[in-house]
Every structure is written in structure tokens, then in C-alpha cells.
């Protein structure tokens, strides 16, 4: 009898678990939504750039107005640093205040797990209505039809798609359609540690400098534990405590370091074929290899910490006097206040050409969204010029992808002094290539070769040929 009763109870429990597992979780999530109270909304609205927006897609735009008539719950998937999230939530409160009928559920995922989570959500057709994504990773989902085609929506006059840096859109396009809208497009510039320059008695670099000048400075700024530079006969390369420059090319996304030398590692337009072994690319890579091996002025293994002792970027860690880095570092350095620094445009190469990498982040609408119009209205708010200025540029998180907002990164009362260098670099910055779905796999499978080449463990020609062989085998899947 007891046994039968236990079986019955077990069946009920299993049934309940199955129902719970299969049930729609919308109700649960909406219950946790942090919609501001009316008082909060009013208070935020008065100071909100969203409410006072005049550029791009203001809340008064026809699309936004039509979606404001109905109650709608929108899931917003993000992956931000704590500092970014703090500012972004303020912006989101302003949007909520301007659209009281929207219930926006913020779903934050730590950056380490975002790819895995999005893959699972795409497979389960459970992506949030609007999702944040890195431009470099976008194609893997775009080509799986995970996102809504936004081409016709962005063509609407009020969106002003021409206001975006044209280069910043590339990673969100596929077969002449646009599947995402960038909100940030940050070029790498060269940061320099003024304290280290002062200690070495060197003049700060200026925007018209060249790669050869950068090399000379890097050598003079590299120090071993006894304070010797590589120019001193007693210099000990095994006890370097300060590098002149923070990087050497460490992966297939090294194009920005090679174009100034007149060398392009991309063999075709979408960069699904690499040519690191081509003579001009080889020569340019040789320049960098000798900077690491002969001059010892830049680490061959910049980020692991094995060589510098500190994982992460050597410049940010105070281990390098100069460093290529994105705008995000401005926010970080200003927050900690540990370094006295300034920035300068990337140097010109022997050909007179400047080049630098452009990191983009954007928003996309999930193909599985049931509220595409409302999602589009939200996306418009998130890429609105005033929103980008207030919540991304001014806190020092990122450079707005809209030209009309880019000057908002300029803050004369905060470091760095030469902020105009970032605006200038936007003119020639290019997104990382390749950015097709298998690019990350190609990067992972070849990163080791770059380290070995820069270290001198693998001969340049042999290593570059191996990079081409391995990477092109992987990238062939994207052709």
C-alpha cells in the first residue's frame, strides 16, 4: 500500500517538474522587472537625454509613438562590465520613464560566458528581443538567421543611417543586408605614460610621428632591473621591468599593425583568405619581430602575464611606457587615477599611411522576437545620439558610432589631454578582419604561432606559412 502511495507521489512530483520545466517563464521574469515608480520616472525624465533627444530616433518618432500605445514586455540582453552596467542602467531608467508602457527586462551575462549563452539562446529560439553583441562576433549568429533584417527599418529617414561611421556597420552586414546597429566604434590609439617619458627625459610623441620614431622611443623607454636600456651594453633582456611598447602582433587580427607598412594580410575582400606569408606582409612582420627579439622593446607574449608578470594589458598594468589600446581604457584609467597619461594618434608607417583597428559593439533584434516593432523602437533609443553621448561617451566607456555624437567624448576637464586624437583616428580606423564566423577559431588555432615568431622560436617565413595554412583551412568554411 505504502509502495503504491509512494509511486503515485513520485508520478505527481515528476509531472510537476516537467510542467515547470516546459512552462513559459515570461510571467516570472516580468515579475522581477524593475520598472521605476511614477515618481522615479518623473524625476529621471526631467534630466534625461532620452526625453530631450533631438537627433536620430527620438521617442517622438512615428515608430516609437505607435509602440507606446500598447503594454509590452521587452527582454534586453547585455554583457557589460560593472562600470558600464551602472551607467547603462541609468540610461535605461530614462528610457523607461519616457515609455511608461514598456516593461524592459535587463538580462546581464558576464562577458566570459556570453558566446555560450547566446549560442544556447539562438538554438532554443529564446534570444532576448534586443541583444547587445560585439561586432567581431556578430557574423556567427547573423549567418544562422538569429537576427531580424533591419535594412528597411534603417532606411527610414528619421533613423539617419548616414550618421553612422560607415566602417562601423561592416561587421553587422551580410549579403547586402544589415542585421545590427552599432552603438560604439572605438579606434585603437597609442597611450603613453608621461611619468615614464619624464623619467627618461624624452619629449612626448605628437600626432605626426612615425613608426620609426615610435621604435626609437620604445628602445629608450625599455628598462631592465638595473635601469639599463637595450642601447646599453650591460642590458639584460631576461630582467626587463619596463617595456617601451605594450604589444607585438599576437594574432590574425594584426592588420592595423601591418597596413602602415603597405602590407595587407587579407588576400580577398572579406578576408576569408589570409596571406601572412606574402613578401610585403613578411617584411612588415619582420619589423615587429625584430622590435621584440633584437630591440627587446616590446613583449612577444603581451597578455598572458608569463613574460610581464601581470596578466592583461602591459600598459594598463604600468609595465609598458606606450600602448595601443581602445577608448575603454580612458574610463578605466581615469577611474583608478593611477597613471599620468596622454594619447596620440597611431604613427604613420614608411608609406605615410596610418591605420588602426576599430572595435565595434552594437544591438540586434532577435528573429524570434514577438515584439519586433517595439524592439526596433527600443533599439532606436539605445542608438540615439543623445543616449550614446550621455551613457557611453561621457563616462569614458566607448566612442559613439554616430558621427553626431562623437565629439561628446571630448571632456577638457579629464585626461587625456589629446582626446581629439580619437576623433581623428575615426577617419581611417578599420574594423578587425577577418570577422566571418570562423575567424575566432582561426585566431585560436594560430595565436601560438605568432608568439613563437615574435619570440624567435619559429623562423619568420616558416611560421607565417604555417599561419596561412592553418587559418585558411579554417576560414575556408566561411567562403
Amino acid at each position, binding site marked *: 500500500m505504502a509502495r503504491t502511495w509512494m509511486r503515485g507521489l513520485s508520478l505527481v512530483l515528476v509531472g510537476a517538474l516537467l510542467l515547470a520545466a516546459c512552462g513559459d517563464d515570461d510571467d516570472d521574469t516580468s515579475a522581477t522587472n524593475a520598472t521605476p515608480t511614477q515618481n522615479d520616472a518623473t524625476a529621471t525624465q526631467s534630466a534625461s537625454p532620452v526625453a530631450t533627444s533631438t537627433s536620430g530616433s527620438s521617442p517622438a518618432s512615428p515608430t516609437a509613438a505607435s509602440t507606446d500605445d500598447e503594454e509590452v514586455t521587452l527582454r534586453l540582453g547585455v554583457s557589460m562590465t560593472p562600470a558600464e552596467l551602472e551607467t547603462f542602467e541609468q540610461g535605461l531608467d530614462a528610457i523607461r520613464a519616457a515609455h511608461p508602457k514598456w516593461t524592459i527586462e535587463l538580462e546581464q551575462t558576464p562577458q566570459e560566458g556570453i558566446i555560450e549563452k547566446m549560442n544556447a539562446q539562438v538554438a532554443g529560439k529564446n534570444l532576448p528581443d534586443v541583444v547587445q553583441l560585439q561586432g567581431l562576433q556578430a557574423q556567427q549568429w547573423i549567418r544562422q538567421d538569429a537576427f531580424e533584417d533591419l535594412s528597411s527599418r534603417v532606411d527610414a529617414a528619421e533613423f539617419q543611417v548616414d550618421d553612422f561611421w560607415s566602417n562601423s556597420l561592416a561587421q553587422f552586414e551580410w549579403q547586402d543586408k544589415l542585421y545590427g546597429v552599432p552603438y560604439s566604434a572605438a579606434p585603437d590609439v597609442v597611450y603613453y605614460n608621461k611619468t615614464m617619458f619624464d623619467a627618461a627625459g624624452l619629449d612626448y610623441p605628437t600626432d605626426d610621428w612615425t613608426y620609426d620614431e615610435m621604435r626609437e622611443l620604445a628602445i629608450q623607454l625599455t628598462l631592465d632591473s638595473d635601469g639599463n636600456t637595450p642601447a646599453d651594453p650591460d642590458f639584460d633582456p631576461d630582467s626587463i621591468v619596463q617595456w617601451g611598447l605594450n604589444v607585438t602582433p599576437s594574432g590574425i587580427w594584426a592588420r592595423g599593425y601591418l597596413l602602415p607598412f603597405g602590407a595587407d594580410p587579407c588576400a580577398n575582400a572579406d578576408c576569408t583568405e589570409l596571406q601572412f606569408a606574402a613578401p610585403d606582409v613578411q617584411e612588415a612582420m619582420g619589423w615587429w619581430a625584430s622590435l621584440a627579439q633584437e630591440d627587446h622593446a616590446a613583449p612577444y607574449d603581451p597578455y598572458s602575464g608569463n613574460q610581464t608578470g601581470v596578466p592583461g594589458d602591459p600598459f594598463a598594468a604600468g609595465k609598458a611606457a606606450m600602448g595601443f589600446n581602445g577608448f575603454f581604457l580612458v574610463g578605466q584609467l581615469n577611474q583608478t587615477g593611477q597613471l599620468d597619461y596622454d594619447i596620440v594618434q597611431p604613427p604613420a608607417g614608411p608609406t605615410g599611411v596610418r591605420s588602426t583597428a576599430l572595435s565595434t559593439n552594437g544591438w540586434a533584434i532577435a528573429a524570434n522576437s514577438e515584439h519586433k516593432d517595439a524592439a526596433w523602437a527600443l533599439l532606436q533609443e539605445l542608438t540615439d545620439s543623445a543616449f550614446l553621448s550621455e551613457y557611453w561617451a561621457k563616462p569614458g566607456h566607448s566612442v559613439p558610432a554616430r558621427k553626431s555624437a562623437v565629439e561628446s567624448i571630448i571632456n577638457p576637464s579629464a585626461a587625456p589631454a589629446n582626446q581629439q586624437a580619437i576623433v581623428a583616428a575615426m577617419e581611417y580606423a578599420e574594423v578587425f578582419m577577418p570577422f566571418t*564566423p570562423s575567424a575566432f577559431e582561426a585566431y*585560436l588555432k594560430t595565436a601560438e604561432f605568432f608568439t613563437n615568431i615574435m619570440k624567435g622560436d619559429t623562423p619568420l617565413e616558416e611560421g607565417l606559412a604555417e599561419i596561412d595554412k592553418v587559418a585558411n583551412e579554417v576560414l575556408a568554411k566561411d567562403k
Partner: protein
Amino acid sequence: MLAAVGLSLTDWQLVAAPEWRGPGHYRALFEDELFRTSLKNTAYYALGSVPLGVGLAFGLALLLNRPWPGMGLFRTVFFMPALVSGVAVVMAWGWLFNPRLGAVNSLLGGLGLPQPGWLAEPRWAMPTVILLSLWSVGGTMLVFIAGLQTIPRDLYDAARIDGANRLVLVRHITLPMISPVTFFLLVVGTIASLQLFTPTYILTDTRGGTRNSTLTLPLYIYQNAFQYREYGYAAALTVVLIAITFALTVAQVGLARRWVYYAGTTGWGG
């Protein structure tokens, strides 16, 4: 498991329906250099960590299985590291073994000894991970202590009367009597060693270390599935890993008949 076998015969990138490929992924394994490397590294880790871990745990258990005051405290001290989160341990280990700023090399340098590159050096990378595995030896030690306490005292007393010294007692009484426990720990330890993932994932930024020196089979499965979205190939690798695990376990069970003694049953090999 059946699903893994089925998937291993397809090309699947998670969103679109899997496409039939047949045994193509298994053929590709033979040409995949990284697969061979990951297999070799996994074997290296298993052969290094299991005997070392079980041996050390047995030694500690013998030391701490004495009726001396304070033994409980020592057992707790040795067991406590096993309670710490694996990720936290690995992170701390990464700092300790940092070639330039790590405490281990500082100590070695202070003693005038050579300072290896540890994880940065291919020949030292896997030994470093094996050393890390000893961190949680306390759990194994505890199982040994429990086993040791089940051995009847009169066996030792009788042997001592016959003039047996400590070494003989261990060789002829302790080891046979505790052999079922040792067998269990070897089987479980081997299976766990074939699943090595967390340390190599964290310490090598998911890549598998310098020249793939710590790329293990589970990490390679992870890379293929979650980084390259090659779920079919990852499933094939998983099937191979399961097959290896199964074969090794069967082999261990088979060999157990020769050295495991079950007291109170039919004797050797149960």
C-alpha cells in the same frame, strides 16, 4: 550517450537541423593533430596525477591514522583544501606559479635554484597541472583513513607476535586489506583525470597552453563545441572519450582480480 553517438554522425551548428555526415568525423580524427596532442596530454595527466595522488593520499592516511592527540586537527587541515572551490584554487595556483612574480619562483630564486617557466614552458606546463591536482588530495586521504580503520587490529597483533616489522605489516596486511579502497580510488581517480578541464581552461585562457601543452581531450571537446560550433565533431570526440573511459575501467576491473582482496568473501578478486 545515444544522442552523442547520433550527433557524432552529423554536421550540426546548433541552429539548423543536423546534416548526416556518416563516419566522416571519426575519419577526420585520424588526421587531426590537435586530437592526438589532446589525447597524449590527457594520458600524461592521468599517468602522472592518479598514481601520485593515490600514493600521496595513502602515505598521509598512514601518518594520520594514529591514536595520537591532535590527529583530528591534522586530518582537518589536510582535508580543508579539498573544500575550496576549484576555480578559486586554480586562480590562486596561477599566481603562485607566475614565472616572473609568483611566490614559487621567488622562493626558488631565493634558494639559488633554477626558476622554471611553469605553465609558460611546454615541458613544465603539465607537471604544474599535475602538482595542482595534489591540492585536493585530502578527500582521497580521508577515504583511505576510513578504510584503514576497518582493518581488524588482531591481524597486526598476530603478525607482530610472529616478528613482523612495520614495513612487513604494511606490505602484507595493510595493502591487501585496503586494496578494495585503493581499487575504488584508482578507478574513480582515473575517470576524473580523463575529465580534466577546469585548470587548463582557466590557466590557459581556454586555449590549451603554450604549444598546446595542456590541451586535454575535454578542453578540445569544449573548444570544438562552444568556440568553433562544431557540435558533430565535438560529439565524436566525446564518444571517443567515453569509449576510452569505459575501456580503461573494464581493464582495471579485469586486472583487479589479480590484486584486490575482499576479506570475508571469496578472497582475492572477490
